[in-house]
């Protein structure tokens, strides 16, 4: 356990720079987004009301009030989130391959540590999780600050006030990363964890068997997907809706857990018996 925690700390320090850069980009771009989106509306209102002499009531009738939703729907807001998602997805691969490539072969050191080699797997997957939760937590902190700035810029009569929860729930992209309930959180992030563990197993298959390993990894991924969705397929095409939705849901959870355990077991086996430097 102690070695696992030390490895997590070590792995996280290695990604800390990338993590801070992603946080910084998200902060700067989203703040600029709030400013420019609000300014765009204000400029238009000023031009219509003070230059074109359109009465305020008529302006509001023509253009409507501005809501924070418009900021959240803009590229200013969504692009940094997409960048963070891409960054984490990229790092899922880099976290393994960076130890093999180049003349500094750090994988030798990791594999020669006097601890179970599965700790390397656990530490790397934990780092991905910590990074993901860190980025999401930062977004959750940023949202009220952004709304506060937005409220400060747009006068109340021009503003359609929406609660942050309403904003998040009405945006599918956002409610995926910031789930509305604990159950959704467990489901979304559980599925994410499962996907990362399957990817890690695929990477370890490639590292163990090279070219053949790529096919084995793809095959393993395909089998995992088929196993995971097999209850849904059976329900629809064979059993003709035999299970209640809650039963099907429980079966899917069990399937997910089986696949997670299988991925960890296979990764442990590869790291112990098949991996090659």
């Amino acid at each position, binding site marked *: 356990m102690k*070695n696992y925690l*030390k490895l997590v700390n*070590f792995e996280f320090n*290695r990604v800390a720079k990338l993590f801070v850069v992603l946080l910084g980009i998200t902060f700067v771009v989203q703040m600029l987004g709030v400013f420019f989106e609000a300014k765009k509306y204000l400029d238009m209102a000023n031009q219509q009301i003070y230059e074109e002499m359109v009465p305020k009531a008529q302006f509001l009738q023509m253009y409507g009030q501005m809501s924070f939703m418009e900021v959240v729907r803009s590229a200013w807001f969504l692009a940094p989130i997409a960048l963070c998602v891409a960054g984490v997805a990229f790092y899922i691969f880099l976290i393994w391959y960076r130890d093999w490539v*180049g*003349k*500094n*072969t*750090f994988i*030798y*050191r990791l*594999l*020669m*540590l*006097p*601890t*179970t*080699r599965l700790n390397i797997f656990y530490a790397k997957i934990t780092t991905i999780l910590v990074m993901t939760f860190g980025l999401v937590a930062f977004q959750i902190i940023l949202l009220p600050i952004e709304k506060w700035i937005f409220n400060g810029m747009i006068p109340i009569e021009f503003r359609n006030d929406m609660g942050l929860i309403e904003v998040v729930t009405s945006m599918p992209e956002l409610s995926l990363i910031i789930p509305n309930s604990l159950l959704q959180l467990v489901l979304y992030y559980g599925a994410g964890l499962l996907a990362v563990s399957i990817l890690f197993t695929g990477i370890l298959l490639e590292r*163990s068997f090279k070219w053949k390993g790529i096919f084995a990894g793809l095959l393993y991924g395909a089998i995992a997907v088929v196993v995971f969705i097999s209850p849904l397929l059976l329900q629809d095409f064979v059993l003709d809706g035999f299970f209640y939705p809650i039963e099907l849901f429980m079966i899917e959870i069990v399937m997910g857990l089986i696949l997670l355990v299988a991925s960890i077991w296979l990764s442990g086996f590869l790291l*112990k*018996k*098949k*991996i*090659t*430097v």
Partner: protein
Amino acid sequence: MIEVKEIEKKYGRKKILKGVSFTANKGEITCLIGLNGVGKTTILNAIMALTPINKGQILIDGEPLKEKTFEKITFIPDAITMLPQMKIAEAMEFMKDFYTCWNQDRATELLGFFRLNKDDRISSLSKGNTAKVNLLLGLALDVDYVLMDEPFSGIDMFSREEIANVFTSHLIENRGVIITTHEIGDIEHLIDKVVLIDNGLVTKEFNAEEARENEGKSVIDVMREVYIG
């Protein structure tokens, strides 16, 4: 004792090791000699479970390698096993964190022995100094066995001398060492046992001292006999 028993290793269809067997004792320096590509590095990797073998068995003090065996045996490959952005002091800290057998006094002594500056970044070091850091990180562990892969390759004459001096010092004493090298001249007088490997097999295993005393032959003489005929 490290026992390598009938190990076989294939890369694709090519068989690199075809049943290699030898032993390496504690307190002795065993040198694996062979031309490029005969599988010397593969043997060291296999002993450390860094590459799987297709057949055979490797025992360390009578047991197969387990996670705790890494407190008893260490491997110094020909490339450094630490991150380039680390300072030497950080690399030492990493080792101290993970290995209970890390000997800080010896690490400090080696730092002085090799005249290294602990605040230097690994990426900024010359090839010779990088090799010395690699040796430091391995030799500062209180382990019974040390495996070294080509510790002299591509290193200047003075660094080679310094590294060779390690073998005559107390830093190596009482440990079992397996070393692969091309630069046999640097350590010929220090080797206890020689294992000649060719075509995936051990072609000759002999005691260097006995060959010198009984047959009047140096290691290079025996190599010439075996490889050239």
